């Protein structure tokens, strides 16, 4: 896990939480946006436990940067970009685990759902992160390519191509 250094800088450090309006905003964002961030992380990594972990990490970063963020802007794009960067940072580690052996059931899922997830995970394993995410964001979540491109920091054309490739790969499978 790569977190930025948060060390206490010189100065007087006091707790006056009730004076900080900003403290309520990350909590609200957490309640409202955790499912979106998790779904993005899940489609990007195709790994349930890693997605839970990445989503938590993204919100931990949001908390630490709460005073520097422009809260007049939507915060979801910031969270998605952060999650994607965290996922890319750990790509090697995640890949090592994925290649290490048979997938285990995610501990946070009921057994039946976990089995369904493992089947889905195998079916989608042939897609790369962008293809999977482009397909999920547009075909499952119902976002337009214009909306998705803002969240993923790429062009609508690239997303359209990725989603199309993803469908073709899945249709060609088996």
């Amino acid at each position, binding site marked *: *896990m*790569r*977190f930025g*250094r*948060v*060390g*206490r*800088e*010189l*100065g*007087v*450090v*006091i*707790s*006056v*939480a009730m*004076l*900080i309006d900003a*403290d309520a905003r990350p*909590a609200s964002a*957490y*309640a409202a946006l*955790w*499912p979106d961030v*998790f*779904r993005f992380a*899940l489609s990007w990594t195709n790994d*349930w*436990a890693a*997605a*839970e*972990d990445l989503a*938590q990490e993204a*919100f*931990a970063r949001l*908390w*630490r940067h709460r005073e520097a963020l422009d809260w007049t802007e939507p915060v979801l794009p910031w969270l998605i970009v952060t999650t994607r960067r965290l996922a890319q*940072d*750990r790509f090697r*580690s*995640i890949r*090592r*685990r994925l290649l290490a052996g048979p997938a285990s059931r*995610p*501990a*946070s899922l*009921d057994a039946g*759902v976990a089995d369904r*997830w493992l089947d*889905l995970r195998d*079916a*989608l394993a042939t897609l790369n992160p962008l293809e999977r995410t482009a*397909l*999920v964001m547009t*075909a*499952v979540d119902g976002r337009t390519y214009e909306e998705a491109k803002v969240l993923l920091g790429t062009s609508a054309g690239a997303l359209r191509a990725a989603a199309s490739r993803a*469908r073709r790969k*899945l*249709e060609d499978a*088996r």
Partner: protein
Amino acid sequence: MTRRDVDSLLRDWDEVARTARTPAPVLQAGRVRVRGHGLSVLPLLVVAAVVVAGIAVFARSAGGPGGGATPGASAAAIAPATGSVDDGTLKLSLSADRGTYAEGEAIDAVATLEYLGQGAELTIFTALDQVVFNVAEVGGDRQAGGGARQSCNLHTLTRGEPVPFPWVKGAAYVPGDPAFAFAEWYATSGSRLRLPAGTWRLSATFEGAEGDCGPSTHTLTAEIVVTVVPATAASAGPTPGT
């Protein structure tokens, strides 16, 4: 696979993804950093009020009967409380922004985990909640904490980059059972750490394994002691120091 099969697959993905439960938030108490320059009048007044109140709390608790403050210089009341431990590879620290708090006041505690080894980074396997927090009353039997999730995950620690873990509550208890009354109160009294008057040992425990999921090869516990004084003492006006 037909186009319809793909659509069915995606619908199934949606259904399964919707079963994900939003975990308990890791968001913690607020912290304001006030620098030594560029202060506006209001923050200065707030700082002054807090410092004066802190000194008053210490003076009363150290000098009065039943105050319960840890003996020491007044600076201890407002200085950060920090404890750390290392095994040569990993260092776990726990700190709170002060050593003394008023009852009901949020205690802003945070643990940090740092890789000390020779390599650039260390890959380690841990449960999702890598650091577990506990509170225990010094000289009493009230305690609560724990509650780590058991999934095993990989994490990469980079040398020289301490990873912060804000205090997260967790506790095992039987609802309504008096034997677990404190743990139940602790777990259900909001996400921020607040404690009754008394002296409390706060601890953070990290358990992780190198190589693969399995028995922990690193187990570290860092502790600090904080004093919580009755709210009436905290709200009293300044008294002459000792």
